[in-house]
């Protein structure tokens, strides 16, 4: 539509030289109400029966030209890419590579959906939620995804879209915008890390959050121990059990061991729905969660996934590597956004071979995981959904160290291996007993002791592992 107008603007209709513009209009428009409307400036266009074409009056022409200039100006300023998808949500066109700054929007995405590479950080549950939106033909905004650009570099994009409908009102696809938000994401992650460092330092200076320990000073992720702190530690004859923002497994290592590991560790932000490993796929990194939560899921053909383990700050994701296997046996799904330290697989193997304390800590952790999985297996088979939900909420609470967290029905159903109705009933029951609050996926634990009583004995068994 716009392009037609552009063409029109470049060749504005010229009035017939002999008669003048006004005269031409007066010749065409004879009725009084129409002439009056023209005089009062309420008319945009007049149709000439002789040519069968409509021409715009000068005011309307001017307004449209200004409007187009404005839109063009805004488009040029915007760093967004525009795209269109067909009715199967596959990309059919895009304006990409306008700035050339990142090569993710090249022809390689044509024919692909957001689920296919080079996109691909969407977890199963997120993808399903997104697809539901699409099937409702809803408009979606600022969906944040990771993808790989031409150079193989990981980037973040934000994508928004709205449905398009054809002449007969039938759905023909989606169109929208896409934006590179890698820089924002990186600075957010950096800011998060520096916030943590600052919090650590503040705590260290105040000498709070300390409890007796049993080894050398426990290292804290990329922290510079101040002389003051060491002095305090000597005076107290105690060591910190590790900052609450540290991973307990790393914090339990003697300082020397930890220093050795540190160079190989990097802080990363894990986001909800991200999948760290899939069953049967090689493990690229091991993760030491700090304040995020990772679910280990086993998938059974024809069924939804079932949770078989939960890893938070007490452990590590990727224990198969420590057991000498390079492939994962579970799907590791990030369930609570937060920071983790990660190390690549090769480096981890090397460190693991040479560090006895690391081996000891990991074997202890693996034993706990195994016991937890065994207990969970029995629990899932024998205990009521309500008790299992209570147990699961308590386990989550212990790991995120917060009485408030976000979990959807669908997600809980996956975790407990029941239908969503089952989750609603169980959550409703716990809510009636004033143990939790549950609104729109937001869970609050009101009474921890009461919830412990409501949970099955399995919580007591695995709590201390």
């Amino acid at each position, binding site marked *: *539509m716009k392009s*037609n*107008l552009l063409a*029109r603007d470049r060749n504005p209709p010229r009035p017939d030289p002999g008669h003048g513009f006004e005269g031409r209009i007066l010749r*065409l*428009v004879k009725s009084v*109400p*129409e002439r009056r*409307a*023209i005089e*009062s*400036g*309420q*008319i*945009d*266009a*007049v*149709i000439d*029966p002789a040519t*069968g*074409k*409509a021409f*715009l009056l000068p*005011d*309307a022409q001017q*307004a*449209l030209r200004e*409007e187009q200039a404005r839109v063009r100006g805004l488009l040029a300023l915007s760093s967004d890419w525009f795209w269109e998808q067909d009715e199967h949500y596959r990309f059919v066109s895009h304006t990409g590579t306008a700035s050339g700054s990142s090569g993710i929007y090249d022809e390689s995405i044509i024919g692909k959906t957001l689920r296919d590479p080079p996109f691909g950080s969407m977890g199963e549950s997120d993808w399903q939620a997104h697809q539901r939106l699409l099937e409702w033909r809803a408009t979606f905004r600022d969906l944040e995804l990771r993808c790989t650009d031409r150079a193989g570099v990981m980037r973040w994009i934000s994508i928004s879209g709205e449905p398009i409908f054809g*002449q007969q*009102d039938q759905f023909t696809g989606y169109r929208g915008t896409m934006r590179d938000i890698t820089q924002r994401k990186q600075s957010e992650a950096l800011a998060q890390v520096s916030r943590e460092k600052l919090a650590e330092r503040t705590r260290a200076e105040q000498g709070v959050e300390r409890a007796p320990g049993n080894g050398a000073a426990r290292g804290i992720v990329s922290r510079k121990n101040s002389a003051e702190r060491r002095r305090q530690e000597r005076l107290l004859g105690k060591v910190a059990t590790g900052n609450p923002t540290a991973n307990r497994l790393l914090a339990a290592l003697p300082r020397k061991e930890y220093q050795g590991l540190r160079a190989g560790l990097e802080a990363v932000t894990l986001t909800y729905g991200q999948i760290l490993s899939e069953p049967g796929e090689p493990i690229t990194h091991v993760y030491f969660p700090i304040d995020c939560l990772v679910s280990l899921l086993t998938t059974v053909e024809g069924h939804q996934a079932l949770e078989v383990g939960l890893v938070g700050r007490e452990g590590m994701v990727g224990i198969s590597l420590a057991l000498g296997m390079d492939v994962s046996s579970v799907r590791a799904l990030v369930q609570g956004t937060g920071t983790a330290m990660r190390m690549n697989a090769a480096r981890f193997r090397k460190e693991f071979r040479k560090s006895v304390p690391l081996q000891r800590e990991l074997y202890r952790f693996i034993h706990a995981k195994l016991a937890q999985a065994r207990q969970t297996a029995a629990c899932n088979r024998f205990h009521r959904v309500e008790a299992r939900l209570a147990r699961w909420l308590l386990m989550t609470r212990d790991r995120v160290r917060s009485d408030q967290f976000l979990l959807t029905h669908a997600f809980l159903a996956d975790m407990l291996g029941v239908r969503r109705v089952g989750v609603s009933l169980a959550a409703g029951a716990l809510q009636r007993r004033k143990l939790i609050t549950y609104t729109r996926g937001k869970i609050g634990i009101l009474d921890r002791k009461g919830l412990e009583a409501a949970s099955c004995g399995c919580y007591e068994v695995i709590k201390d592992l």
Partner: protein
Amino acid sequence: MPRKKTKREASGRAVATIVVMRLYIANDAPNSVRAVANLEAICKEHLKDKFKLEIIDVLETPLRALADGILVTPSLTKVSPSPAAKIVGNLSDKRSVLHALGIVEPVE
């Protein structure tokens, strides 16, 4: 391609007169945009679901407009119920629009 905006009656079995209208506009020209907005407000207030509106862009389909006897845009025609009526301009004069559509404004 005419831009169509069709609103069907919700469900009710009660016999309700549906006002069928055509609005002729020129793309996004100022008076055309205003006419669409004015008409939408009027329909929402007085006709609820009981109308069908077709919006025709004369820059794209001028012959269609000519065939309907339209020379200037924006123009609004009432196709049914009879009598047919036509009103030109940006429809900012609500009273004359209601009159043309045969809607009696409730006495306040």
